[in-house]
């Protein structure tokens, strides 16, 4: 199944960094997401979009994960030539991931 089926996500931007949250609809799925949605898997999935390092923060207090992706916005929000300079839609790229 796709992450989209069991979780939601919001993209945020800071300079050339994209932040992607991953929030399961059912908090019981949090542990499973921690196991399956590893940095390695996300890196592979976001190839071509994210060129830099990815750091994953586990947030058991709200049963959510946060992926902080470096070099994800083609140089940064203000000087990128991409059509979606902020990467607002990148949350839906993450949710396309099959698990």
């Amino acid at each position, binding site marked *: 199944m796709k992450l989209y089926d069991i979780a*939601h996500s919001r993209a945020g931007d800071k300079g050339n960094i994209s932040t992607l949250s991953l929030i399961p609809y059912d908090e019981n799925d949090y542990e499973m997401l921690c196991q399956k949605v590893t940095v390695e898997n996300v890196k592979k999935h*976001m*190839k071509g979009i994210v060129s830099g390092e990815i750091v994953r*923060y586990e947030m058991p207090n709200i049963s959510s994960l946060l992926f902080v992706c470096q070099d994800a916005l083609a140089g940064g929000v*203000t*000087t990128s030539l991409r059509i979606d300079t902020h990467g607002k839609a990148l949350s839906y790229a993450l949710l396309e991931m099959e698990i």
Partner: protein
Amino acid sequence: MKQKIRIGCGAGFSGDRIEPAIVLAEKGELDYLVLECLAERTIALANKRKIQDPTKGYDPLLERRIETLLPHLVKNNIRLITNMGAANPIEGAKKIIEIAQKQGLKVKIAAVSGDDVISDFRLGNDDFVKFGNEDFTLELIEKHQFPVTNNKSTIISANAYLGIEGILEALEADAQIIITGRVADPSLFLAPMIHEFGWKTDDYDLLGKGTVIGHLMECAGQITGGYFADPIKKPIENMENLGHPFADVFPEGSAVISKVEETGGIINLQTAKEQLLYEVINPNEYYTPDVIADFTSVKLEEIGKNQIKVTGGGGKTKPETYKVSVGYKAFWQGEGEISYAGSSALERAKLAGETIEKRLKSQFEEIQVDYIGQNSIFPNSELQYQNSEVRLRVATKAQTQAEATLIGEEVEALYTNGPAGGGGVRKYVNEVIGIVSVLVDRDKVKPIVAYFESL
């Protein structure tokens, strides 16, 4: 001391809708209304307007927002805190006075500036240190002739993210309206909490808790279903009438976030979690000028329909430096678009894109070719689908306006020189203002507060 204050957030960016703030001021039973209207680049664009006309440089929607809001604020005794001062809080304050006079209303206004580190403190090259690994920023500043920003200079703005201090001073002086330049977004909310509850400004645990609440509120509609709705998985009712949030904040640093009844949208665990993590680079250490906040101990609880209780969070000592956003003239962006549809739409769009690339690659270092409907949003990725219509977009960085114009002209020429059935050309040329960040020592910058009264 009050046992509860209610703070509403009626705007989350410069271009936000006007009427949610009016609904809050009219029916929200607020103590404070915050309008957050400054994105990263907004202030640089505002400074460009100020360089051309010294009486401008505040938010372009200020007049429309204030004219409609002011009678409600005065009638319901609500204090307004807003960063609509942008590059010129003092002229913004004078404009509000002018509106109040016209409406026959008595108000005291405070303008908080001091964030414009070039004009206000004449800071120069040696005062800044690198933020992150952006060597480029220091090179940019090195080349700039401080302390002047004018039409010819590459740097057009340098604004420090100030904290609570200037707003606190204005609150203590009984200003009903506080209009600031660049202030960190959560500080707009934290200042009234400190003022009303008598929190100590070095009680970093409480400051961290208040910052969490401010962060949840600062994007207005983003916690009530905006930037959230998905008709399949996250349906939201009545989006055309989206309500903006208010927070009932309590002296021990907790809050209940809700919205005016009968407005559209929703506040639930899902919207609150998405917003808590929005634009957070490190949830253990969320830097603001007031505190380094901890988001990993925040608890969110749904206690009723459209009611989220926020408890926990914390913080440690504020940073020694202010972050400064530097706006500079980066380049001219030229763009052109053309559409293809039906059988072989993608193949024809690609032929068009390749044709443009071949013709222009000797002149431009960077050419972005997107196939909208195919790969423009998830570039270079395998996440692609077949569509019955495709729009080619070509964009480049140019040194001059004239050079940038070439892109649109080339795309337009595809009508008669390119693949079959290309239609709907649009051309754009824009000057792009880039933003980079540096750090400056705290003691080199301090807020400047000026007061104005109507009648």
